[in-house]
């Protein structure tokens, strides 16, 4: 279970997150929606401590961090319980697909080489890249790179995987293959928090949808509730603006 | 022996007199170098037969050997060449008519030309191919697109390298002592030899060069700001 409690964050005088509290149960898929600048990506990055929250509390499983007094060892432990899939993939450029997945297993989890390799090969096969093990990222398409990114996140066996707009940088025809992989691991009961603009995907896969705007959570509920019967005016406005897009995505 | 501060001051004033010599070597070599560089860069980029290969060999040779060897080769080699040709053709011109600083001008221009060739080439290569296509798409001729679209952008891209080359030539001008030209460096030696205060004299020389270098950097930064205005912001 992931519990965010009263998370606040500001860049200079600009407050991006205001007392955000959010609980994600084990096995749950939560999709965060919102216009750009609403703070959704910042919130996700705070969970992984890539942004340092100003105040609040982050709990992953039975491990709890008070952001005001987090020590380096706390941050490291928090990061080892979470994994991130980036918008720009961020695959290690000097390592092959296989090495990308193996890297953290060897360095962070300190698993033996043979075991790490076995697990990584299995994961890459799972995301459909069994034939691309020894390719460098520069030789892979965006969709393939992102699938390696997902395999890399899965390898850590984290309590939660954070997806930061995983399909935004992709060519439209490559979005499908990545969403399909995310969908299939969602079915396996892996806990996920996903920031995305793919409405069809959100409706289809999410257990819960959270709508953010202006650094606060405006509304949350089941996809049906939020998409069909939004209560807040801001949510309705946002949905009206993006609905046409939702028609042609999956 | 104590550091003689007052001598640093008086050496500084005496060295100021040698600044014009240093600057004239720098300006001449940079200007001539730019012309040689632009020509050889174009020859290489358009792959003009024979001339392109000669240009490449020239750039490789110069960049692979010390500037001092260029100066010495010119100093000893050029007179033989000139006098030989002169005699053949019956001219009255003899190599002794060339002033010492002439060898520095010629040799340093040849050095600078090779480095400038790379600066020009890198600048032009830095311009996106899409820019050429866009220029052609609105009906510009090759010359028009070069002059109005490519060169301004190439100049902006090349400016930092250009400034470094100018600084390199300024510092390189100290080698002129080898052909008895009295620039700032040689003057420091002369000033110090009267009372053996080499440290103080070279300290003064270093301060002058430091100041000139900072000046060039400032000017280049100022030009860069104006020329590169279109390139500002957006990335991060």
């Amino acid at each position, binding site marked *: 279970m992931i519990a965010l409690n009263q998370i606040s964050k500001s860049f200079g005088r600009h407050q991006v997150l205001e007392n955000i509290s959010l609980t994600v149960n084990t096995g749950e898929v939560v999709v965060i929606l919102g216009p750009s600048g609403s703070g959704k990506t910042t919130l996700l990055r705070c969970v992984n401590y*890539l942004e340092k929250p100003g105040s609040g509390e982050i709990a992953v499983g039975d491990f709890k961090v008070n952001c005001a007094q987090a020590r380096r060892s706390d941050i490291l432990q928090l990061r080892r319980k979470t994994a991130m899939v*980036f918008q720009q993939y961020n695959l290690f450029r*000097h390592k092959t697909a296989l090495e990308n997945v193996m890297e953290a297993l060897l360095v962070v989890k300190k698993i033996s080489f043979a075991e790490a390799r076995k697990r990584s090969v299995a994961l890459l096969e799972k995301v459909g890249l069994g034939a691309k093990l020894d390719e*460098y990222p520069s030789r892979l398409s965006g969709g393939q790179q992102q699938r390696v990114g997902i395999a890399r996140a899965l390898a*850590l066996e984290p309590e939660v995987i954070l997806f930061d707009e995983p399909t935004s940088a992709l060519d439209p025809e490559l979005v499908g293959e990545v969403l399909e992989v995310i969908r299939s691991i969602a079915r396996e009961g892996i806990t996920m928090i996903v920031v995305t603009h793919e409405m069809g995907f959100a409706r289809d896969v999410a257990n819960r949808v959270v709508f953010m705007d202006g650094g606060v959570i405006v509304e949350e509920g089941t996809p049906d509730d939020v998409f069909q019967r939004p209560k807040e005016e801001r949510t309705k406005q946002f949905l009206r603006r993006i609905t046409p897009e939702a028609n042609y995505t999956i | 022996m104590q550091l003689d501060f007052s001598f640093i001051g008086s050496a500084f004033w005496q060295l100021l007199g040698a600044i014009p010599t240093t600057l004239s070597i720098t300006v001449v070599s940079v200007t001539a170098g730019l012309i040689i560089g632009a020509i050889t860069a174009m020859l290489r980029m358009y792959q003009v037969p024979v001339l392109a290969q000669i240009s490449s060999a020239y750039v490789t040779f110069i960049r692979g050997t*010390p500037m001092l060897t260029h100066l010495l080769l010119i100093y*000893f080699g050029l007179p033989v060449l000139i006098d030989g040709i002169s005699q053949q053709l019956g001219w009255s011109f003899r190599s002794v008519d060339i002033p010492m600083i002439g060898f520095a001008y010629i040799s340093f221009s040849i050095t600078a030309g090779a480095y400038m060739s790379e600066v020009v080439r890198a600048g032009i290569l830095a311009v996106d191919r899409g820019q050429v296509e866009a220029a052609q798409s609105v009906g510009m001729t090759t010359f028009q697109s070069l002059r109005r679209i490519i060169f301004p952008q190439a100049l902006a891209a090349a400016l930092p390298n250009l400034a470094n080359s100018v600084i390199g030539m300024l510092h390189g001008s100290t080698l002129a002592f080898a052909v008895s030209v009295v620039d700032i460096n040689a003057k420091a030696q002369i000033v110090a030899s009267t009372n053996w205060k080499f*440290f103080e004299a070279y300290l003064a020389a*270093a301060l002058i060069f430091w100041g000139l*270098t900072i000046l060039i950097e400032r000017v280049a930064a100022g030009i860069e700001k104006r020329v590169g205005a279109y390139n500002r912001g957006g990335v991060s």
Partner: protein
Amino acid sequence: MGAPFDISYVFSFLPKLLDTLGVTLMIVAGSLLNGILAGFLVALPRMYKIPVLRTLAGIYLSFFRGTPILIQLFLFYYGLPEILKLVGLDLTRAPVMFFVILTYGLHTGAYAAEMIRASVAAVDRGQVEAAYAAGMTPYQAFSRIVLPQALAIAVPVFSNLVIALLKDTSLAFTLGVMEMTGKAQTLGTLTQHFIETYLALALIYLAISFTLEKLLVVAERHLTRHEIRESRSNSLFRLKKRGSLRTVMADIDIGKGGIR
């Protein structure tokens, strides 16, 4: 001026000059070692923005890049013994080679510092984030992710740096060190065949520069095997590939073109 030109002298001078190649290479190697060490010491406070040290590093960089190496050589040769005498150290009997390697080392250090800083800065920020997200410590992220990529970016700059240093060592003779250029002068004066000696000298420098460059290209190939190589096209304007190392290199300019 001098004896008439005779090409055979060029060949007979080559082995004589090569006798002193060891001295030249020793200056290059010693200075390079010092320079890289100094470069790291100067680059770190700048990268981690440590107050005071950062300002001192800035002054060091500005001075060594702002004055000619020839002036620096004289300055250290004449000045260092006097300054150290104030703190009771006697350097008057230190070998000339000490001053030469020290000065070239400090000079190279200024350019090495910029090379290090720029190469590290050129590694995409997302790489570090991905390393952190995977739970690596800052040390692991630096040594396993940033450093290998920075190294690959640095090779071409490093190549220029070494060749520039090699060429700069031709000035060591001004302090009386008998390296290749010094030897060439002696030979020239002795035989009056100046053109031939300097031609032989230039050929040797050219050969070493060429070899160094080729070796470092091999190293670069090896370190950048993960990048798509730009094919050399014949068109005047090659397409700029986004994020390729060569493009990155165009943005890194440590200002050591190797003039002098």
